[in-house]
């Protein structure tokens, strides 16, 4: 126990002995963990949004002007039979009008309905909402539906989804590269810091060895130091990410309040409370893990020679 405490104390001492190296290590570790978390947040959110876009925004099928009820039922059945479809929902003209009114006129709804009375301006816009099982079958499904007789128009959001996917992939690649480079710099700096610490403690290590200290005991202060760098280098960026994410959430919510349409439903950040635990865990694993492993290996190399 006293040995354990002693090692921890020595680790803190190492940590404080050369502030410049320590600060540089903590700063780069912080930066790389910060970017890692930021990218993680962006990619997770984009993926979430794409999912939402894929799932909630289905394919809307409008019927030809002269389509009979029977024809509509046939079309519906054919789509279901075609496969690759999660659900097909019939939206009557009235329903379409209701939701349109709600979405676009809000509080003024009452007056408007009076003005139009029974004369539904969307009388001919009953439709089928088709939810594809996955975005991969969407194109093919749309083509099929277009080929059906009695179908006037098919709307879907493939371009939106496709471009979001492209952005997502780009962010993913860029973040991997940047995080990777920063990670390498972090490893290098932590390793250097530990090497300097080893030089400071050279004499002490020699004496310890002569007295009968185990390798583990000689290594411990350095691993403690590396772990401390890792903890600081993780906690600082996590706090920063928390603050920034919170602001982004509020900002997005406010600026999209005024706008309308599907963006409002899709561009919603995953709540911080949902995303933060994983992020913190990943960050801690990466930061603290790196600090521990790098210091352990570095000091091992110094002790072998």
């Amino acid at each position, binding site marked *: 126990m006293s040995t354990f405490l002693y090692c921890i104390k020595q680790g803190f001492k190492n940590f404080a002995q050369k502030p410049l190296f320590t600060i540089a290590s903590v700063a780069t570790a912080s930066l790389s963990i910060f970017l890692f978390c930021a990218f993680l947040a962006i990619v997770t959110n984009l993926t979430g949004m794409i999912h939402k876009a894929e799932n909630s925004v289905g394919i809307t099928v409008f019927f030809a002007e002269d389509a009979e009820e029977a024809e509509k039922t046939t079309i519906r059945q054919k789509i279901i039979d075609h496969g690759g479809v999660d659900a097909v929902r019939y939206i009557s003209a009235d329903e379409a009008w209701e939701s349109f009114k709600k979405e676009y006129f809000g509080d003024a709804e009452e007056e408007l309905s009076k003005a139009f009375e029974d004369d539904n301006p969307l009388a001919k816009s009953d439709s089928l909402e088709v939810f594809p099982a996955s975005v991969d079958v969407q194109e093919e499904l749309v083509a099929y539906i277009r080929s059906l007789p009695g179908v006037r128009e098919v709307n879907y959001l493939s371009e939106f989804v496709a471009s979001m996917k492209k952005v997502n992939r780009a962010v993913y690649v860029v973040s991997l590269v940047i995080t990777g480079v920063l990670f390498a710099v972090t490893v290098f700096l932590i390793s250097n810091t530990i090497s300097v610490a080893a030089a400071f403690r050279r004499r002490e290590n020699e004496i310890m060895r002569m*007295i*009968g200290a185990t390798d583990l005991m000689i290594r411990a202060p350095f691993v403690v130091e590396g772990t401390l760098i890792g903890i600081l280098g993780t906690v600082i960026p996590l706090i920063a990410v928390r603050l920034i994410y919170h602001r982004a959430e509020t900002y997005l919510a406010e600026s999209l309040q005024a706008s309308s349409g599907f963006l409002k439903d899709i561009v919603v950040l995953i709540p911080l409370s949902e995303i933060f635990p994983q992020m913190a865990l990943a960050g801690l694993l990466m930061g603290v893990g790196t600090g521990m492993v790098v210091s352990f290996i570095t000091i091992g190399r110094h002790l072998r020679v």
Partner: protein
Amino acid sequence: MIRLIHANKTYTKGVRAVKDLSLKISDGEFVFIAGRSGSGKSTVIKLLTGEVKPTDGLVEVNGTVMNKIKRRELPQYRRHLGVVFQDFRLLNDRNVFENVAFAQRVIGVPAEKIKENVAKILQLTGLSAKYRCMPEELSGGEQQRVAIARALVNRPDIILADEPTGNLDEKNTEDIMRLLTRINEMGTTVVVITHNRNLLTTMGKRVIHMEKGSIVGDYPTGLRGGTEL
């Protein structure tokens, strides 16, 4: 018991530091090793601490065969040794008490026990009044006594001292020798390397004379006044 049988040590550059050396030191003995610079004295000590391995022959300390000892077995083995150097090798950023307590921390002695043991050893080495001093505030002799206290505090079976008085004046040398004699009388085997001819003749202890890596003389009760080294 320390036993070397036809031990050889050739360093990587081909220097034969120890040549066909056979030597037995019984438990509780006090032995000087003397000889010219480069005759292989320090190498013998390093063979005993496990810092270097014999190239061939046998090196055995209290039943441990040093030829075969594994790296991970060394720490446990060394806890039975106390090693002292000419340059003291103290931790300059820590006071006397901490320098001695350090040896106990390394082997995991509980804190209360450390206080007790260190106090005892500081008393034995005559450092009780100085326990809070930093090494730089001490004379050379006092610093060496701290080093000896550190070597002693874990109650080793053997003390190995490589020129412990090399940096000390006559008075301090005498003090250190008196201390080592006392420790020896308490049952610890003591092996001291020295260039100090005076010690070899006046103390009446066994002297092993080395030359070019081999033993050329073994004097069980010390050197006579006229003996050449």
